[in-house]
């Protein structure tokens, strides 16, 4: 049986893993390769590395890091941040990434999804969506949650699938950083309308949130950062809890 995936997310700035709460108060939490290898040996199913380094000259640093990660990690990993054209994705593929995740750049230029999936396959493209529940529904935001756009979560996710996205990574801005649980209702609706896997992100704080997101949110995978970085919920303990609650995990 296909297992539900647990995915730690590592934000990378200038080659270091960092963690900020709501994009503020950024602290370094360790070497990306060492931390990734530790998560892999703890039982993480996959990793996401997001490059939050803004400047162009530091991009080379990130692709070198991707190669070091690929050399040391024996589980799949995706990389995101600063992928604006096909060439950026190609560089990361050559560096050893298994998948790329695109967010703002896909909103600005939806053809990027078609181009990357057309060249390297749907399995290579995760479309990440940050959205906030507002009066009129789930509005999509770009630039790290700073700029609202005229897109709605569900229609945008469906469009991304139709254009060739292999997975959707949905972060609820209402839940992110709260540790009060995932956006279960929106996730369930996403899973119902899509025929590609959905990765849930934002709100993980307790083991039971993961049971909820798999059972009720119908997510295929759940992503979290701080609870793993600060060892609040070690992955082996989380997996044990999930097995005890009849969730199929590795």
């Amino acid at each position, binding site marked *: *049986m*296909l*297992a539900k*995936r647990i995915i730690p997310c590592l934000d990378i700035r200038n080659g270091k893993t960092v963690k900020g709460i709501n994009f503020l108060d950024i602290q370094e939490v360790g070497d990306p390769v060492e931390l990734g290898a530790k998560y*892999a040996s703890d039982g993480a*199913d996959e990793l996401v590395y997001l490059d939050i380094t803004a400047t162009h000259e530091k991009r080379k640093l990130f692709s070198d890091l991707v190669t070091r990660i*690929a*050399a*040391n990690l*024996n*589980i*799949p990993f995706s990389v995101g941040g600063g992928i604006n054209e096909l060439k950026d994705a190609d560089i990361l*593929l*050559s560096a*050893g990434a*298994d998948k790329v995740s695109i967010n703002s750049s896909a909103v600005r230029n939806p053809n990027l999804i078609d181009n990357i999936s057309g060249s*390297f*396959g*749907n*399995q*290579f493209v995760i479309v990440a969506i940050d959205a906030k529940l507002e009066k009129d529904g789930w509005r999509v935001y770009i630039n790290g949650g700073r700029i609202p756009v005229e897109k709605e979560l569900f229609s945008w996710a469906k469009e991304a699938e139709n254009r060739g996205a*292999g*997975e959707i990574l949905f972060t609820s801005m209402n839940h992110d950083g709260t540790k009060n649980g995932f956006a279960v209702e929106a996730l369930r609706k996403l899973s119902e309308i*899509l*025929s*590609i*896997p959905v990765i849930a992100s934002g709100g993980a704080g307790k083991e039971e949130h993961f049971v909820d997101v798999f059972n009720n949110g119908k997510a*295929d*995978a759940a992503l979290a950062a701080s609870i793993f970085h600060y060892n609040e919920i070690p992955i082996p303990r989380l997996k044990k809890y999930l097995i005890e609650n009849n969730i199929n995990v*590795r």
Partner: protein
Amino acid sequence: MTVSIIKYNAGNIRSVDFALRRMGVIAEITDDPTVIRASDKVIFPGVGEAASTMKYLQERSMDQLLKGLSQPVLGICLGQQLMCDWSEERDTNCIGIFNQTVKKFPPLDNVPHMGWNQLENLTGDLFKGIDSGEYVYFVHSYYVPVGKDTAAESNYILNFSASMQKDNFFATQFHPEKSGDTGLRILKNFIAL
């Protein structure tokens, strides 16, 4: 011990090379027929689309080269599919080592089948020390049905060939290079053949 990784337009060559390095094996990534024929083990990786990949291989006569090898050969992912007779993916004639056709998963669940799934009904030297129920990493939209060359099964929507073997030809639908310690043991078993 010499190991060749077939160099062509596949996406996971580097990952396979890295995995071998982690177990202390330095492979040669090559498309030189002389080097490939002379090596003790040959790995045929594969991520991509069947038709364009077969065209690439045929233009270089690499399909015939592969079929004629007598040392242990390991096809991975698309590699396993291309070692069959024919693929539904853009109606593609393949290398024809395994007498099987490759089919697309019916749309009864998410396609591609992506993630960690369990191995069952394991047979052969590739799975020495591997228990039924161990998880490995899959990413694919097409599958090889269970047949006489099936060496391991997995279930997603239906039972399919997670691994195949015929004579000196071995293949896995999953990615041993991305399958943690289980994948590493399978690669070690292949190198030890």
